[in-house]
């Protein structure tokens, strides 16, 4: 197990595998951070149910843009220009969950509840990681706290829809069914050589399967509390 702490000035001295994995994870993280606003701003900013909700959409987008900025800075400092992810089409995103569009408020709510929660899990992977500039970014309380704010908004909105019952509950359940498997898939393959190497270099903390199970446990408990059905975790999955 790698035990060094690496600062920017020492990056080039690291093993090529370490350099490649760090470049890769920063590019994917940057893509995911800006991928969210690209999914929901176009339709949700003009069509959110209230003026307050419209402002919340704008503020959420601003916070995700700031996360993108911080990760893009880290990537840029090690020579990786991730500005290309700003203009790419949604269908070209690294992670499948960001390849569509969000056109309904219930999808926006569930996206916050389930997909921003994956975002929090991914950021937590970097806490105390071997690359100090990245560890510092996630140690700053803003980033994870903002992500938690997006999640809380999504949880509350989802719970409100579920509590209304009838058609509202059916619609939110449909959105949960759609996003639940996408969330599980975001953790990647359970048996992954690359995941093992990330852990070896201490660029991530948990195996994919462990993080996915922790995530699933959190989501299932909340869905149960809301009186919603827990979707089949194996249906339409891309990665297991």
């Amino acid at each position: 197990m790698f035990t060094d702490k690496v600062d920017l000035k020492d990056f080039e001295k690291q093993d090529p595998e370490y350099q490649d994995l760090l470049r890769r994870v920063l590019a994917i993280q940057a893509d995911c951070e800006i991928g969210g606003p690209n999914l929901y701003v176009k339709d949700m900013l003009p069509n959110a149910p209230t003026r307050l909700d419209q402002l919340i959409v704008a503020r959420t987008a601003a916070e995700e843009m700031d996360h993108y900025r911080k990760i893009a800075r880290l990537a840029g400092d090690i020579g990786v220009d991730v500005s290309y992810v700003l203009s790419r089409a949604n269908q070209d995103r690294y992670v499948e969950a960001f390849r569509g569009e969000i056109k309904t408020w219930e999808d926006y709510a569930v996206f916050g509840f389930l997909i921003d929660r994956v975002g929090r899990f991914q950021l937590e992977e970097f806490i105390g990681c071997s690359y100090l500039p990245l560890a510092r970014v996630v140690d700053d309380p803003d980033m994870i706290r903002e992500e938690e704010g997006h999640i809380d908004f999504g949880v509350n909105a989802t719970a409100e829809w579920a509590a209304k019952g009838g058609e509202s509950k059916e619609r939110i359940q449909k959105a949960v069914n759609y996003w639940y498997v996408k969330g599980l898939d975001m953790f990647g393959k359970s048996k992954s050589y690359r995941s093992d190497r990330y852990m070896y270099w201490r660029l991530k903390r948990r195996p994919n399967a462990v993080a996915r199970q922790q995530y699933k446990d959190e989501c299932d408990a909340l869905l149960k509390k809301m009186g919603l059905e827990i979707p089949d975790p194996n249906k339409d999955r891309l990665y297991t």
Partner: protein
Amino acid sequence: MEAAPNTEALDQQFKEFIQALKSAVGSAMPHLKDDPKVVEKAITDCRDILDVVLEGNVKEWLA
């Protein structure tokens, strides 16, 4: 280690976008109940800023 070109400029540009968005949202929040024109203006500003950001025309921003 040589940074990627435009790293600093992109960072600065994003800081400006984010500040402008947060400022617009912040100016509207206290007036949700008493001044719909202020709120409407802020939402329009947010849309204008986000349209530019999501278009992603980095070369144009940094020219």
